[in-house]
């Protein structure tokens, strides 16, 4: 099996987010960056499990600058076979997807994995876009993925339940929690990663149609109103009369 995993770099989940004073840019001072959890814990690990069982390769692809190299190396240390970084600033989802699709075209990957969403832009867009550019089926939010021969069976998260779908031939999948268990890279993996093929290639020209122009932080809560633990009638009254939510 020949598998591709799309990986992006995001701020660590514990990061306190801030922006430059004019609100135009993310302030990355003091921020630790990680591999997007859905890409690392679920997509990459499931791809590795599938090739460990039936043989094959797992290639990582990232669209980003040299500041993404550490993230990509971590993916190699966890077990991916090789990596490609498309050297461009990832400003919009369609641009990113176009780059990934152009890389994948002609490579005939059996499955292209991405995460359910990136935890910074939360678009859930890139996977669907890659699928459309390559005219492939797309199974989104898969919490389970099993492959037998050329057919895959997936469990997809839908509102209030799950859907079980079957797909034949190459396809794109977005990975949700449940698809695999996080793996921590070991020393040997980290050593081996250093000699694995890692290509840096230029992007194809493509416009950015939708870009963030201004960021704002939510208004701080004005302060909690404490209600005595033995007076729940008062809480109900406040929710009804003051907050007007019941």
């Amino acid at each position, binding site marked *: 099996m020949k598998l591709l995993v799309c990986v992006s770099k995001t701020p660590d989940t514990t990061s306190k987010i801030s922006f430059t004073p004019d609100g135009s840019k993310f302030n990355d001072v003091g921020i630790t960056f990680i591999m997007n959890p859905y890409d690392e814990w679920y997509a990459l690990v499931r791809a590795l499990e599938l090739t460990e069982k039936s043989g094959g390769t797992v290639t990582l692809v990232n669209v980003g600058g040299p500041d993404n190299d550490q993230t990509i190396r971590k993916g190699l240390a966890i077990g991916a076979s090789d990596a490609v970084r498309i050297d461009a600033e990832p400003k919009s989802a369609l641009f990113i*997807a176009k780059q990934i699709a152009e890389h994948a075209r002609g490579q005939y990957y059996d499955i292209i994995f991405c995460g359910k969403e990136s935890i910074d832009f939360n678009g859930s867009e890139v996977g669907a876009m890659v699928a459309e550019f390559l005219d492939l089926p797309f199974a989104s939010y898969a919490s389970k993925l099993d492959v037998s021969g050329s057919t895959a069976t997936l469990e997809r998260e839908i509102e*209030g339940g799950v859907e079980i779908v079957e797909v034949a031939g190459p396809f794109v999948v977005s990975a949700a929690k449940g698809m695999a268990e996080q793996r921590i890279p070991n020393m040997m993996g980290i050593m081996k990663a250093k000699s694995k093929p890692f290509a840096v290639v230029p992007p194809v020209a493509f416009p950015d149609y939708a870009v963030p122009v201004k960021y704002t932080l939510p208004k701080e809560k004005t302060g909690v109103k404490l209600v005595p633990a033995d007076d729940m009638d008062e809480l109900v009254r406040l929710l009804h009369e003051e907050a007007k*939510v019941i």
Partner: protein
Amino acid sequence: MILVFAEAVNGQFKKTAFEAVTYGNKTAQLLGNQCVVLTLGKVNNAGQLGEYGASKVYNVSDANLDSFDSQVYASVIAQAAEKLGAKVIVLAHTSTGKSLLGRLAARLNAGSVAGVKSLPDIAGGSFKVTKGVYSGKATAEYEISSDLKILSLSGNEIRPAKGGGEVAMEELHLTVPSPKTRVLQVKRQEGIVPLPEADVVVSAGRGMKGPEHWGIVEELAKVMGATTACSRPVADADWRPHHEHVGQTGLAIRPNLYVAIGISGAIQHLAGVNQSKVIVVINKDPEAPFFKAADYGVVGDLFEVVPKLTAAMKKFKAG
């Protein structure tokens, strides 16, 4: 023309579809345009979408549209958009809408924004919308520069607004490709409002001590007409099903009221719930970080407080 795709589940339209049509109608008014709605497959009572502002409802019926395949749906919606001359396409930010948004953007070579929270700002000829980023920790304003714009509307952002009357449904004849995915089974919990659509959510964490104590949470949820949720360690320990897990790595929700019981309020938990309109926190530790994000707080033992709140709610509902 503004084209709204109104999604039906088992033929029924849900709140998210009414929200999307309302949004489409308001956007159409802003742009001096019409709001046209597209429905796919078997749908009941599509004419009611006129009440939310659809000036026309089109339907494409074909056996290949009776279950969801993003490739097939995107192809049909794109054909409709081209045929009808859409300037903006509006979807709901549901699992279906999210799977279509990117496909449509790639297919129609258009800018898209996922999970929009506001009506477009069209000052000075630009087109800007806001959306949550960094898992709800911030808001970003996006500018879309392509001619066609594609948006998915975040749930619970705008109230479905009735105004118009019923409209007739017209059949649209388009090419419907055959799906490459086959839906084998759909397992939905019946009778429960799914978390992303719930107005009221009652959520509990590790403070519950064990799954055997969840009865008091379920009872409170029942009297409040709420959907239940949980923190991640609770789902990881299989005290509760995984689809209840909210937070940065679970579902992000934005109900009108979020009641957090025995949850400390870690940053990753808050990321998924801090866009709720009103937050109530019940925790025995007055130093729990969640109180800083709360509107109302009760410092006390949940095993005493929750049954009292349930009783007070019952009294209130009885009127």
